[in-house]
Each structure stands twice: as structure tokens, then as C-alpha cells.
């Protein structure tokens, strides 16, 4: 139960919202059913909902002056607790009837909440231009209410041929930036008391400048089709297309107040006197002011882009016929004095859009933004005059500087070509100023950080340089490995060769000499173990053998030739120090003696061992 209640509650909230949305959509078109030729009238499409994607008809047989213009309104209403919302969108066209006949205007379409709606078809009969067409306008203050008179006929004979505004351009297919002069000219056969321009023509896509002021109209007369018209240029503007494309200039709307001579039909009151009285010339003629809205024709201008071929890189936006000059007021000055560089561009064209030329001053110059002076006259023939850029330059360091030539490029639409004019090169000599500017004291050297002006890649490497076959590296080559292996093999051979050579030289003694010390050391080591174990006999044997063997090996004397008697002579022959020989023989004697003599043998053993060691090391040292 509770759930159902909740559901009902939710539904009661949602349902009104839906009902609000699902109102009937009405999409209606309305227009006068009959108009006269040359008349401009409104066609209105009204939809009572929020629509989108409005698609208007093509108005075959008519000229669209402007439109669709959209206006929107929406309102909420609460009546007796019920809310109602109403939306309204109105699309309005201003249509000019140019041809006579009956025309059907096809339905327009609009999408409302995803559904497409179509309006009704309109049937409009265009009658041949006749008098009284403007009488339909209710705004006319012509009829005087409360005066039961017969319809007035002649005063409102203001047809399209009596007053009209013609718009024309000097060129309908200009280049971007080229000057186009648009002129609105008023033609009238009737005297006009006042004119008022309702919408000052806007020029989307153009930069515009009015050329004449509307309060100084110059009148002249012109004869068209045998009829004499008084003409005046009511508006004249210079237009400069800002981009390429097709632009529609909407018509100018103007309200003219004509002063007409009123002529009434004769009154017939039945009373001849009164008839006579009212039909008197004094009463019979009068002046009346009639307001009339006049539209000019719409104009289409197709701006073409500037040609890309031959476009100089410095070209910015100057289009026209110009002259270019540049001058400096002096070429020699002192530091901290001012120098003026004046660039003048004169001629006709879009002078206002010309930018200051890009001048590269030496970095040692202090420069300021140029003072721009334009002297532009807006005559009826268009824009012309001159524009000057004045650069104030203050050199800060003495020296000789040049201001590099700079260029000004423009496009001349009459020849269809680009022109580039170049300034002369200015050489400026800056002398050292007599005094420093007040308030600045310099301490030490006036150093500055290096100014980096631009970045670029470094320059190419200059030949000659060594080329090699692609992909071949020394490392991967056979030569590399050949050398590598060759080196190792050579080394092995070299070592082996040297070693064998040394052996072959038969230097066996040398080998023996090497061996001597090691053999003696070994024997002495064994003796030392015997010493520790108190094995006397073995100890003395070992010591004696070590000493004899050492002598034999060291001095290359065969063992058999050696005896206690001849050892001294033999050693003397080998140029051994006699003292050493004596120590050696003493050690040997001590050894022999200890072997067979009684006494404290262990004490002797210690001494003999020490003596043997010292003797051997003594000889070793001597031989070094």
C-alpha cells in the first residue's frame, strides 16, 4: 500500500510537467495577401514553442531584403494553481516585391522537441504599382479622424519612383584590404522636408570609415527616363574588406518626410455657396507632410584573397598605392643625444591599417616605440594621405653604426602586383659624449652581460675530412683480430725463444748458482729439525753436507776436488774475501771437531748452526 501511495505521489508531480510540455505546437506564417509592385513588406513566422533549426522558404519571385530576424519571448502563468508556460518565437523577413503576379510562398519548417512542423502556405498577389499603395500604412498621420470627408486620393501618390535610395559600390570584387567606396544616393521627385536614416548601414566583415557627414548634403539634379530628380548622396563610406569571402551589406533604411500638395475632390454639400467656398483655390490646395520608409537595395561584395605568388615575406597588410621614404635628422651625434628616424608612407589605400616597419636597430641603441602620426584626409574620392612613424633613438656607446635597410611592401590592386620599397642604409657616427648623464656614477669598468640575439645551428664542418666505406669499422675488421692474435702469438714465441736461447747458451753454472742457495737452505732446515730432536750425529752430517755442497755449487767446484786442505786455495782463486774464507773454514772445523769431541754437545750444536747460517749469508751478500 505504501508503495502505491508513493507511486501516486511521484506521478502527481511528474504528470503536470508532462502535460505542460505536450501543448499544441502552432507554427503560422502571416503576410499581407496583396501588395503592390516595388513595395517592401514583412513576412512573419510565429511558433508558440521553443523551436530550433528554422528553415525558411526561398521566396521565389521576391527579393529578400533582410531576414530571418529572430525574436523570442516566454512567459509563465499561474492561474488557479495551474501553471502554464508559453514560448513564442517570431522569425521575420523583409521582402521586396519586384515582379507582378501571384506567388505562393512555400511553408517554412521548424523543429520543436525533435518533431518537424511546417507552416501554412502563403499566397501573395503583387499588383501593378499603382497610386495609394502606401495608404495601407496605418502609421500615416494623413487621415484626420472625425472628419467625414471623402477619401483623399492625390496626396499619397508617393510611389517607389518618386523617392528611392540607390546604393552602389565603386568595385564589387575587390582584393582583401582594397578600398571600396559605397555610396547611398537619394533620388526624389517630391520636395522633402526631412530625412532620417534609421539604421546606419552596418558593414560586417569590413573596416569602414564615413567619408561625408550627413548634415552637409550636396544636391544636384539628374534626369532618369525623362524625369527630373533631385539627388543627394546621403551616405558614403570607404570600406576595406578584412578577409576574403562574400559579404552582404544589408539595405539602408531611411524615413523621408515629403511635403505634398494636397488636392481634394470637390465638396458637394448641396449648397452652391459652400461648394463655391470650399472649392476655392485657397482651401482647395494645402501642404501635407507624408512619411515614407525607403529602403535601398542590398549589395553583395565578394572580396578575393591577395595573390600568393610573388608575396614578399615582409608583406603585412598594406593594400593601395603608396610611396615610402625614410630619413634621419642627423648622422653624427654624441652618446646620449637623441636621433630621429622618420618613416613616411603616403598614398591612397588602407593607411590606417599599416603597421610600423620592422627595423633592426643596433643593440647599443636605446629605442622607443615609434610615434605614429597619420594625416589622412577623407575626401569623397576615398582615403588618402600619409602616415609617419617617428623613432627616437639614443645611442649609448660611441662607435660607427649602421641601421640596416628595412623594407615596406604593399599590394597595388590596380596593377595586381606586390611592390617592395627599401630604405637607404644609414650610417651613424656616435662620438663620445663630453659628460656622463647626471646622477649616474660609474665605478670601475662598465661591463655588460653578453646579449644573445638569436639561436641557430652551428655551421657545417669543412672538408677535407676522411671518408670510409659505410658500415666498415676497424674493430669488426679481420685486420683487427689479425693484429690481436698476432700480438699474442708473437709474444708467446718471443718468451719461448728467449728462454730456450738462454738454456742453449749452456749456462749450467748459472743454474747451479741459483740452485746452490736453495739446496743449502733445505739442508740447514733439516739440520734445524735434528737440532730440535737432539740427534747430534745426523745434525753434524747435515751441516757439513750443507756447507760443502754450497761451496761446490756456488763456486762451480766439483765435490771430489774439495778437501779441507785445498778449499782455501780454491776459494782464493775465486776472489773470495780471505776473512770470509777463514770464517767458513772455522765453521767447518768446528763442525768436524764437535762431531767427535765430548762436552756439552747441545750447546755446540746451537753455535755451529748459527755459524753455518751466518757464513752462508755472508758469502751470499758478498757475491751480490
Amino acid at each position: 500500500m505504501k508503495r502505491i501511495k508513493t507511486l501516486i505521489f511521484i506521478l502527481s508531480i511528474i504528470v503536470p510537467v508532462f502535460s505542460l510540455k505536450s501543448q499544441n505546437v502552432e507554427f503560422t506564417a502571416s503576410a499581407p495577401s496583396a501588395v503592390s509592385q516595388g513595395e517592401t513588406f514583412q513576412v512573419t513566422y510565429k511558433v508558440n514553442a521553443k523551436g530550433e533549426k528554422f528553415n525558411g522558404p526561398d521566396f521565389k519571385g521576391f527579393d529578400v531584403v533582410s531576414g530571418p530576424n529572430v525574436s523570442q519571448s516566454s512567459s509563465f502563468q499561474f492561474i488557479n494553481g495551474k501553471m502554464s508556460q508559453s514560448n513564442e518565437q517570431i522569425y521575420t523577413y523583409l521582402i521586396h516585391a519586384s515582379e507582378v503576379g501571384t506567388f505562393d510562398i512555400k511553408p517554412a519548417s521548424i523543429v520543436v522537441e525533435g518533431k518537424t512542423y511546417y507552416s501554412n502556405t502563403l499566397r501573395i498577389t503583387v499588383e501593378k504599382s499603382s497610386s495609394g499603395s502606401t495608404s495601407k500604412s496605418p502609421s500615416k498621420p494623413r487621415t484626420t479622424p472625425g472628419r467625414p470627408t471623402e477619401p483623399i486620393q492625390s496626396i499619397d501618390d508617393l510611389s517607389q519612383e518618386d523617392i528611392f535610395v540607390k546604393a552602389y559600390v565603386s568595385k564589387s570584387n575587390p582584393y582583401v584590404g582594397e578600398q571600396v567606396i559605397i555610396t547611398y544616393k537619394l533620388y526624389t521627385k517630391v520636395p522633402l522636408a526631412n530625412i532620417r536614416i534609421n539604421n546606419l548601414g552596418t558593414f560586417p566583415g569590413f573596416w569602414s570609415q564615413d567619408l561625408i557627414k550627413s548634415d552637409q548634403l550636396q544636391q544636384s539634379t539628374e534626369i532618369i527616363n525623362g524625369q527630373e530628380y533631385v539627388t543627394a548622396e546621403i551616405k558614403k563610406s570607404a570600406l576595406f574588406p578584412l578577409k576574403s569571402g562574400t559579404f552582404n551589406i544589408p539595405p539602408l533604411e531611411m524615413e523621408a518626410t515629403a511635403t505634398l500638395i494636397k488636392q481634394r475632390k470637390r465638396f458637394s454639400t448641396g449648397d452652391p455657396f459652400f461648394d463655391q467656398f470650399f472649392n476655392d483655390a485657397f482651401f482647395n490646395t494645402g501642404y501635407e507632410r507624408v512619411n515614407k520608409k525607403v529602403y535601398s537595395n542590398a549589395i553583395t561584395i565578394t572580396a578575393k584573397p591577395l595573390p600568393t605568388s610573388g608575396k614578399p615575406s615582409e608583406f603585412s597588410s598594406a593594400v593601395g598605392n603608396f610611396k615610402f621614404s625614410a630619413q634621419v635628422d642627423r648622422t653624427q651625434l654624441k652618446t646620449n643625444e637623441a636621433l630621429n628616424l622618420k618613416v613616411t608612407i603616403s598614398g591612397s589605400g588602407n593607411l590606417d591599417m599599416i603597421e610600423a616597419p620592422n627595423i633592426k636597430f643596433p643593440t647599443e641603441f636605446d629605442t622607443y616605440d615609434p610615434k605614429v602620426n597619420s594625416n589622412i584626409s577623407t575626401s569623397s574620392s576615398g582615403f588618402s594621405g600619409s602616415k609617419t612613424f617617428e623613432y627616437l633613438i639614443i645611442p649609448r656607446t660611441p662607435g660607427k653604426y649602421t641601421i640596416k635597410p628595412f623594407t615596406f611592401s604593399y599590394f597595388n590592386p590596380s596593377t595586381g602586383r606586390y611592390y617592395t620599397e627599401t630604405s637607404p642604409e644609414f650610417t651613424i657616427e656616435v662620438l663620445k659624449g663630453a659628460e656622463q648623464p647626471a646622477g649616474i656614477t660609474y665605478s670601475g669598468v662598465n661591463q655588460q652581460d653578453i646579449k644573445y640575439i638569436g639561436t641557430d645551428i652551428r655551421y657545417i664542418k669543412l672538408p677535407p675530412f676522411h671518408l670510409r666505406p659505410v658500415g666498415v669499422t676497424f674493430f669488426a675488421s679481420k685486420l683487427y683480430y689479425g693484429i690481436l692474435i698476432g700480438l699474442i702469438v708473437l709474444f708467446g714465441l718471443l718468451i719461448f725463444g728467449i728462454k730456450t736461447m738462454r738454456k742453449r747458451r749452456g749456462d749450467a753454472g748459472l743454474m747451479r748458482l741459483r740452485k746452490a742457495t736453495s739446496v743449502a737452505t733445505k739442508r740447514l732446515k733439516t739440520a734445524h729439525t735434528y737440532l730440535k730432536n737432539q740427534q747430534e750425529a745426523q745434525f753434524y752430517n747435515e751441516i757439513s753436507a750443507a756447507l760443502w755442497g754450497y761451496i761446490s755449487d756456488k763456486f762451480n767446484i766439483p765435490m771430489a776436488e774439495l778437501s779441507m786442505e785445498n778449499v782455501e786455495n780454491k776459494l782464493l782463486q775465486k776472489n773470495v774475501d780471505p776473512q770470509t774464507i777463514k770464517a767458513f773454514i772455522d765453521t767447518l772445523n768446528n763442525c768436524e771437531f764437535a762431531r767427535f769431541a765430548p762436552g756439552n754437545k747441545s750447546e755446540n750444536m746451537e753455535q755451529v748452526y748459527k755459524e753455518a747460517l751466518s757464513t752462508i749469508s755472508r758469502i751470499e751478500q758478498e757475491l751480490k
Partner: protein
Amino acid sequence: MKTYFKYLFPIILLGFIFPTGILRGHSNPQALLDSATSSYTKGFYSDAVVYYEKVLSMGFESAEVYYNLGNAYFKLNELAPAIYNYEKALMLKPGDEDILFNLKIANSRITDKIDVVPEFFFQRWWESFYNFFPTDTWAILSLVFLGLFLLALGIFLLSKRISYRKIGLWSAVVLIVFASFSFAFAWKGQQRQSEKQNGIIFEPAVVVKSSPDNASVDLFVLHEGTKVEIQDKLDNWVKIKIANGNIGWLPASTLREY
């Protein structure tokens, strides 16, 4: 003993002379290089490109040719070939200041800005060591060090005096370390040149895919001139890794390997 040295020295000398002495006789490529230089100086960069490419197509190369060609492409505002040639030049002459400078400028003008993942410090040291000499110089150095090592070893083995033997032993140990390092550097450089491990994107914009398949997920977009590391290949696809560590697959035709 003298006879051994008679042969040893010419062989060692040959090792020094080889990379410079060979190819001196070809006058035609040198003439092309001269025309290229004068074209570049006059500002006819496209002519310079033609000359340099001709030298390369004749089967010759050098770091300078690649560098100059890169410069000419840069002046023509063709950044992808410019970067490609700078990288090639850098491969032959790692650590060359001019090449590094111009490569940096060219890389600053391409569309993709990639934050490089910083390398580990000893990897940086290794790189800077390796970049110290071109590959060929490392190869020669390895031979020189090997020769000196063997000399020291010989002294150690043959000398009778202990002091000489000591000197010989220690210098042999130091020299064998030098020799093996320069061998390793030469080997690394050789590997870099023979195995094409990097590539430059040549298409204006390419979509990097998650797998070597056109239907796979788009990961990111790379633009002309960006350097990628090639990790793998499959049919007409390459697996690439960009400097910030992202990995994906690209059709092989969109990049040029080096």
C-alpha cells in the same frame, strides 16, 4: 731476438695508419663534398642535400658528412631527416660538441616534448667514458694497451732483477685492465652501429598501438622527428620505447632505423 721486433713494429704501425690512410685516392667524393660546401654556404640547401646524399649513396660515410647533411635538412626545415643524420653522425663521433649542440636545437623544435627518465649515475659515467673516443679509436687503443701489457709481462718474465720484475708485474696488471676496457668500449660501439637499435619517426603523426595489430588500442601519438628505441620486431611492426619509458608498437614504415 732482433728478428722478432723487425716484424712486430710494422704491424703495430699499420694499426695506427689504417683508418686514416685508406681511401685517400678517391677524388670524386671529395669533389662532391666541395660542391656541397659551396652550395651550403650560398644558401642552396637543397643542392647541398643532393650532394651529401650522393656521397652516402656511393658507399662512403663519415661523421662530418652526416652532420653537414643534417644541417642542410635543418635549414630546409625538415626536422626528421635532420635529427636522423645528427644521430648517425653522433654514432660515428660520440661526444662531438657541434653535433650535440645542433641535435639539441633540432630536438627543441619538434612537436613532441618528452621528459627523459634520468639514467643511473654509473650508467652516465659509462656513457661519458664510452663517448670519449670514436669506436675506431677505442679499437686502436685496445691494441696499443694489449701490446704494452705484453711488453710489461715480458719484462716480468725475463728480467733477472727483482725491481724490474715488480714494475713489470704491476704495469701488466694496470695495462690489461685498460686493454679490456677499451676492448669493451669498441665492442659496444660496434654493436650500436651494426644493430639498429634506435629510430626516428618520419611521419607527421603516428598512433602508437598496444599490440602489433591495427585493431588494437591506441596508446599515444608521436610526431615527426621523435627518437624511439627499438626493442623488438614482428612482421612489419616494431616495438618501441620512448625516452619517458612508454612502450608500444608502430608500423615499421613510419620510422627510419639507425
